[in-house]
């Protein structure tokens, strides 16, 4: 794969990485059904982590906690040293800074896209950040070029195919230039070609030291991108890979 090649060019420093995402004994329950039980996890800057586990083992929930959509009911979550909880997130500018630094690509691209054209969609984040229109235009055209969706710029996101939608969803997050990318089931429903492209793109993100947190059921694709695995709930039989076990 070409991403190994890129990695050689931009070899990340093995040492000196700081912990960006720190979960400490974190618990979360929907109503009264516990979804995360005493989860402790630390992800350093530039790491690629793959979450694996059965349906309902809490992968999506964990990603939402990391993005600041759900809050720990016990234990704590720190992002880059700052405590993230219901109280700190009430500070609008802190919340917005977190949302800018942590990008989330939903499993269902359909629900993630809410503007009337691809161009507006990709420009939404940068405009929110108050960048000048020149800068916004530059980012939009760069993101469209990187994701090869230049020819779709004036189309409505709904009329696109599954793979195209996924690209647009990634471009929307990319244009905000976050430090962390969270992907929920990025490979589901994509054809072989799109999967290969996405793997390659993830490699490029790694090459510029972006942190990746990916939830997936696809072991063989996961193998190609993960620095290490996080197994959630009961996962057995894959103990030959570098992994930690949480939420048992």
């Amino acid at each position, binding site marked *: 794969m070409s991403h190994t090649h890129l990695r050689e060019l931009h070899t990340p420093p093995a040492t000196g990485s700081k912990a960006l995402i720190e979960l400490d004994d974190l618990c979360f329950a929907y109503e009264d059904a516990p979804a995360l039980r005493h989860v402790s996890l630390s992800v350093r800057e530039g790491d690629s982590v793959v979450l694996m586990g059965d349906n309902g083992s809490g992968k999506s929930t964990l990603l939402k906690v990391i993005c600041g959509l759900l809050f720990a009911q016990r234990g704590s979550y720190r992002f880059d040293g700052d405590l993230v909880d219901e109280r700190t997130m009430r500070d*609008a500018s802190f919340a917005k*800074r977190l*949302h800018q630094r942590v990008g989330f690509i939903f499993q269902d691209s359909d629900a993630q896209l809410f503007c*009337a054209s691809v161009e507006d969609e990709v420009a939404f984040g940068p405009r929110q*950040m108050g960048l000048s229109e020149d800068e916004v235009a*530059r980012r939009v055209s760069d993101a469209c070029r*990187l994701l090869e969706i230049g020819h779709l710029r004036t189309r409505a996101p709904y009329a696109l195919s599954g793979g195209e939608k996924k690209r647009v969803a990634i471009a929307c997050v990319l244009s905000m230039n976050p430090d962390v990318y969270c992907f929920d089931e990025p490979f589901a429903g994509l054809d072989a*070609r799109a999967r290969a492209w996405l793997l390659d793109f993830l490699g*490029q993100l790694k090459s510029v030291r972006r942190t990746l947190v990916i939830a997936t059921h696809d072991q063989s694709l996961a193998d190609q991108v993960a620095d290490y695995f996080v197994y959630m709930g009961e996962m057995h039989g894959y103990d030959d890979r570098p992994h930690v076990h949480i939420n048992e």
Partner: protein
Amino acid sequence: MALVDTMAPAPTDIPDWLASPERYQPVSDRDGFISRSILAISSVLARFRLDDGQASPLSPSATVKVVLCLSCILLTSLSRNYLFVMIMLAGTLVRACLLPRGALGRVVAGAGASAGLALVIMLPAVALGQAHSALLLTTKALVSTGVTLITTLTTPAADLTRALRVMGVPGVAILTMDLTLRSIVRLGETASEALAALRLRSVGRNADKAASLGGVGGVVLVKAGRSAQETYDAMRCRAFDGEYHVGGREARRGADVAWMLALAAIVALFLHLQGTV
């Protein structure tokens, strides 16, 4: 595959802004509306997910239960006699006491809210010297909402719609009801997902909030429309021809007779206390 190599851009392709970390300091903006809407929707979804419509062994069949519920509400509403309303309240409370903890909480919350609202609206009436009306209306609100919620919470949704069938509601209406209940959960999930996506990308000042919310509403409708199309296909695949066969005659329950007698007693009491007998 050959494509991979041709599509992999050289590292120089990565623009400078993407290669360096973003230094962005947000200004503040009010978007409490988004989080409040997410909360409202997820509370609705939670209530649908609880799925705790469980009949107790002494419950009547669903049809009888629906008749009982409607009669109680009607009689309570018609009653001019506070003692009768108090008796209905006592009965409702006794039944509520026996509910599982979760269901009890929801009945108390729902009935309490509507009684509270009644009291607030009626408070000026007390000042006008109409305290009797105020108290009567508040108690009636407590009884009718309580009875409704108890009935719903002790009957599985499927039995409720089947009871409607027995009472002569046409199949198409029942189908619409079933489809709506299902759509609420699906739409709610889509809506909260879309609102979450909006919030995650609302990292600064949003000049056009109405357009963004319109987008969320539009996404929800388009997605739901698509899945409705698929649902119709699924129905055709299972030999649906426009006629909705609601089957499975309901088992008569032994308790039905006792409950109908109780209803007769209540009606007699009502007539007696209302002075018509």
